[in-house]
């Protein structure tokens, strides 16, 4: 009974103080909801988000950035509710865990009158978002295929290591396959390596036993590629093939920079896109700068010539 009373009293006090506090600050609040740092790319995403938070709060003294991370769709939906009801945000920057389940929770935020920026994985109803910032998944597959075509002179045998069965993975692989159509490049085998080093290592070991001759590996992702490299080295077949990863992990960019024969290039899918989204949103909020509806970040091919531009030695990814 006493507990309930205390709770009620606290709530009442909170309600009275909250509007006053809000008025006193007159700060613009931007909520950022992203997946937790449970794998390399997401780790980079978190790092870039935190860097952007520091930078933006310094640049705009009346801007307050709140970053929340969630481990799954359910938790991310909870986060959105908290951002609106407790944090009273003015704008939301969100990288949805999954498109379909997050669409309605984001719609609710929009209906509460907030500015909504969606990053990377789109919503099933694009009319909700005020701004969309994304990497280009089909283009990533295309650019990868084009590089391999050129490098291999339009013929040879390759193996493909895929990510996790998701829409993103399908978009990349479909675009890749379409691009190599009509060439003499043959895909010997294709397996899921779950965007993970250990799985990349295992799947590649098996591919190496299964196929006596492999000219190239499309690992699609840098974490997978690192596992692949170890397996190829163990089999002593480094001279036979090259490996193309993707994302822009610093270790891989470094290899490209150092002209590693095994890793001649990398295709960008930068975790820094969250920082870009936060910057555009903040600029629009504070300076009322006009914005486009969509910013698509190119899947740039990283070669020894331009690698230095994409090298972040301090990032965890």
């Amino acid at each position: 009974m006493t507990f309930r009373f205390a709770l009620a009293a606290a709530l009442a006090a909170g309600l009275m103080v909250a509007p006053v506090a809000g008025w006193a600050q007159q700060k613009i609040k931007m909520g950022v909801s992203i997946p937790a740092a449970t794998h390399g790319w997401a780790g980079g995403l978190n790092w870039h988000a935190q860097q952007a938070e520091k930078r933006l709060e310094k640049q705009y003294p009346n801007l307050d950035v709140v970053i929340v991370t969630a481990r799954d769709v359910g938790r991310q939906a909870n986060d959105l509710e908290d951002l609106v009801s407790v944090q009273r945000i003015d704008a939301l920057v969100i990288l949805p865990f999954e498109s379909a389940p997050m669409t309605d929770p984001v719609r609710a935020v929009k209906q509460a009158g907030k500015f909504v920026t969606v990053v990377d994985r789109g919503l099933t109803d694009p009319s909700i978002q005020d701004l969309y910032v994304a990497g280009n998944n089909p283009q990533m597959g295309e650019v990868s295929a084009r590089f391999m075509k050129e490098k291999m002179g339009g013929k040879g045998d390759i193996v493909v290591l895929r990510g996790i069965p998701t829409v993103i993975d399908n978009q990349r692989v479909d675009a890749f396959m379409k691009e190599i159509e009509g060439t003499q490049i043959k895909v010997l085998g294709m397996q899921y390596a779950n965007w993970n080093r250990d799985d990349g290592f295992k799947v590649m070991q098996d591919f190496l036993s299964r196929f006596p001759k492999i000219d190239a590996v499309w690992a699609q992702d840098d974490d997978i590629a690192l596992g692949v490299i170890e397996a190829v080295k163990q089999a002593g077949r480094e001279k036979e093939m090259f490996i193309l990863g993707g994302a822009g992990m610093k270790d891989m960019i470094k290899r490209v920079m150092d002209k590693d024969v095994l890793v001649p290039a990398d295709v960008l899918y930068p975790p820094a896109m969250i920082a870009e989204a936060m910057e555009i949103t903040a600029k629009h909020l504070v300076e009322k700068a006009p914005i486009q509806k969509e910013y698509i970040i190119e899947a740039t091919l990283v070669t020894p010539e331009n690698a230095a531009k994409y090298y972040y030695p301090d990032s965890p990814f």
Partner: protein
Amino acid sequence: MTPSVMPEAARKPSSGFDLKLYGPFLALAALIVLGTIVNPVFLSPGNIGNVLTRTAFIGIIAVGATFVITTGGIDLSVGSLAAFASGVTIVVMNALVGSMGAGLPVILIGVLVALGLGLAAGLVNGLLVTKGRMEAFIVTLGTMGIFRSLVTYIADGGTLSLNSEIRTIYRPVYYGGVFGISYPILAFAVVALIGALIMYRTRFGRYCAAIGSSEDVARYSAINVDRVKLLAFVLQGLCVAIAVVIYVPRLGSASATTGLLWELEAIAAVIIGGTMLKGGYGRIWGTVVGAVMLTLIDNILNLTGAISVYLNGTIQGVIIIVAVLLQRGTVARR
């Protein structure tokens, strides 16, 4: 001695052929035949070597899990612990390179750190279960989350990579071997052998089975239940540490995804091997076979392009269920 205190392995099979005892070995043989049909490369020494070396991590952890499960407990934290111990070991070794230079001493300290962490984690789990009077499931569910988030925190969400000089020296521990048999396979064999000796030839092994069979009966039989259970968790922690010692040189890295779902793989290996999830008796050799089977299924699926990659999980699930079903045949008839 009541029958419940008597370990299963000591019992003479009532009929001529005990399917329950040999079931895992039959299933393994079937899988090997299947693999050979799928791709002749399957039986090449290179492939077999790869598969067994890969099995070593889960296998060693599963040997430890056999003891915990035999006592009727469970340890869900092993995968997270493996990731955490790998991460800390890497950080410590990297930090020492500055003052000690890259060399064997640094690696030895790294190995000691891993072993120490494994033992400590086992002790914590064990004490919470015995002295804290908590369900093993809950305790290790908690520590699973703790270890996983600690490694994510240490790695700052990214990946911890071992210093490359140290890596070069440490690398042979995974990739090297004697007479063409890699060190991880040897380590796995030694751990399994010691595990079998403890399980089948010592009082501790018999006590584990007795406690899993009926904790109350064991207590009335003057067995120090708490101490045996605690020791089982410590043994599990030690096994995880040994797995870490041979895991770190493989890719020289640890991240939040390291060792993901290893706990389930270890438990699956134990159960396929014929140990009952509710405890009562443990089979180390069955566990070894179970672990090899799990890796083989993956390997066989990678060696064929015949099955849609979307269905890998289904095939794995079916094989696991059939393998266990095969063993249940005799139980029902008893």
